C-alpha cells in the first residue's frame, strides 16, 4: 500500500456517517487530487515515496478533513435512527426465526451448544451466533467505524429472544424459567465474546489507520489471524458436534455468513488487501467442499446409496455447494484485484 492508499483508508474510515456511494465518490475524487499532487512533487525531484507522503500531508489531517466533508454533505448522511431500527429489527427477527419452532431449544442447530460442546467452547458457539447477524448489520451500515456498539447489545437481544419470545408465543412462562437457568450463567460469556469481537474490529481498524508503519503492517496479520480464529472455532465446534445431525445445518450456518461478512466488509471497510480476501474466500470455498465430501463419505461408509443421501441431505449439500460457489467467486474476484492495473501516462 502506498502512502496515498493509507491516507485514503484513514479518510474513508472517518466517513462512515455518509452513505457508501457518496463516501466512495469522495475517496475517488481525493485520489485523483493526491495522485496529481504527488506527480507534481515528483516533477520537482522528489522520490515517489517522498512525493506521495508529502501529497498526503498537504491534504491535511484525515479526521479533520473527514469531519468537514461530513458537515458539507448533509444530504448524504446516513439516517442513524433508521439504521438503529433496522439493526434491532434484524436482531429480533433473527431471534424470532430461531425460536419460532415449537421445540425451539431442543431441535435447532444451537442444540449442540448445550449437549455436545464443552464449557470452553460456549463463548465460541455464541460467537458463531453473533456472526450470523453481522452480515445483515454490515449491510444495514450499523456495524463498522464508530457503530460497533451494536455488537455488545446482540447477546442481550438473543437472551431476550430465547427466553422471552418463546414464553410469549407459548403462553407458558415455564419456558422462561427453564431457559433462564440454562442461559443466565452463560450470559456473561456471549457478552464477553461480543466485546472481544468488538475489540478486535476496533483494534484492526486503528492499526490499519495508524501513522506508524509497523502497526499498519501488523493490521493485516492481526485481522487475518482473527478471521482464521473464527473459522477454526467453527471447525472445532463442528468436530465436537460430529455425532449430531446438526453438524450439517451448522456447517451452512457458519460458512455462508462468514463468506457474506467478508463481502460486506470488503464493501464497507476496504481495509484488507485483495490478496488476503482471496485467501480467506478460498478457505471458505475449501470448507464448503470439505463439508460436502465429509457428509458424502460418512453416509457412503454407512452403506447408504447416493440417491438416498441426496434425498435426505440434499438441502444441506445445496447450502455447502452455494458456500463453495460464493467462496470461489469471492476468491476469483479478489485475486483478480491483486493483478497490477495498466499504468496511465503523465497527468
Amino acid at each position, binding site marked *: 500500500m502506498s502512502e496515498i492508499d493509507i491516507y485514503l483508508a484513514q479518510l474513508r474510515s472517518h466517513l462512515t456517517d455518509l452513505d457508501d456511494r457518496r463516501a466512495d*465518490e*469522495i475517496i*475517488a*475524487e*481525493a*485520489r*485523483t*487530487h493526491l*495522485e*496529481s*499532487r504527488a506527480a507534481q512533487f515528483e516533477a520537482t525531484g522528489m522520490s515517489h515515496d517522498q512525493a506521495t507522503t508529502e501529497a498526503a500531508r*498537504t*491534504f*491535511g*489531517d484525515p479526521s*479533520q*478533513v473527514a469531519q*468537514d*466533508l461530513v*458537515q*458539507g*454533505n*448533509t*444530504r448524504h448522511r446516513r439516517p442513524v435512527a433508521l439504521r438503529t431500527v433496522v439493526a434491532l429489527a434484524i436482531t429480533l427477527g433473527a431471534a424470532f426465526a430461531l425460536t419460532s419452532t415449537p421445540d425451539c431449544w431442543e431441535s435447532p442447530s444451537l442444540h449442540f451448544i448445550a449437549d455436545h460442546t464443552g464449557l470452553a467452547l460456549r463463548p465460541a458457539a455464541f460467537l458463531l451466533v453473533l456472526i450470523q447477524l453481522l452480515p445483515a448489520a454490515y449491510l444495514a451500515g450499523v456495524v463498522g467505524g464508530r457503530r460497533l456498539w451494536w455488537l455488545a447489545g446482540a447477546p442481550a437481544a438473543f437472551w431476550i429472544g430465547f427466553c422471552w419470545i418463546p414464553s410469549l408465543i407459548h403462553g407458558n412462562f415455564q419456558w422462561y424459567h427453564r431457559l433462564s437457568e440454562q442461559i443466565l450463567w452463560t450470559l456473561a460469556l456471549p457478552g464477553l465474546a461480543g466485546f472481544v469481537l468488538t475489540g478486535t474490529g476496533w483494534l484492526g481498524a486503528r492499526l490499519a489507520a495508524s501513522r506508524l508503519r509497523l502497526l499498519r503492517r501488523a493490521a493485516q496479520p492481526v485481522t487475518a489471524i482473527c478471521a482464521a480464529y473464527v473459522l477454526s472455532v467453527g471447525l472445532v465446534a463442528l468436530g465436537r458436534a460430529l455425532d449430531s445431525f446438526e453438524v450439517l445445518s451448522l456447517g451452512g450456518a457458519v460458512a455462508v455468513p462468514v463468506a457474506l461478512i467478508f463481502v460486506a466488509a470488503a464493501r464497507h471497510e476496504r481495509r484488507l488487501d485483495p490478496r488476503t480476501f482471496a485467501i480467506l474466500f478460498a478457505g471458505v470455498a475449501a470448507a464448503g467442499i470439505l463439508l460436502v465430501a465429509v457428509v458424502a463419505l460418512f453416509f457412503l461408509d454407512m452403506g447408504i446409496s447416493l440417491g438416498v443421501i441426496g434425498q435426505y441431505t440434499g438441502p444441506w449439500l445445496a447450502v455447502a455447494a452455494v458456500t463453495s460457489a460464493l467462496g470461489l467467486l469471492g476468491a476469483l474476484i479478489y485475486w483478480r484485484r491483486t493483478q497490477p492495473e495498466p499504468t*496511465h*501516462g503523465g*497527468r
Partner: protein
Amino acid sequence: MQRDTQLLKGTVRLLILRLLDREPMYGYQMIQHLKDRSEGYFQLGEGALYPLLHEMEEHRFLRAQWRDQEGRPKRRYYHLTAKGKKELARRRETWQGFTRAVDLVLEASHV
C-alpha cells in the same frame, strides 16, 4: 505578505464561484488557478477545498460531473449552475460594497 486566514475563509466561496464562471474545473485545478492568479497569495488548504465544493453543490450553486480523460484517471469537474450565477452576483455585490466602504474609511483624511 502576511495572510489573514479568516479573511480568506470569508472570500473563498466568492473566488471559487468566479473561477467556475469562466470554465468548469476540477478541485486540483482550482487550487492551482487560485494560487497562480493571486501570485501565490491564495494557497488554499487542499483538504479544505472539497468540503466547500460539496457544500456549494448541496446548495445547488454547483453541479459536478465525472469526465473521462484520455489515458488519465477520471476527474470530477464542477460547473456553475444558474443558481450559482445568481449567488456569484450577490456575493460580488456584497464584496464590492464592503471593499468600497473599507476604502472610504482608509482613504478618508479625517478619521
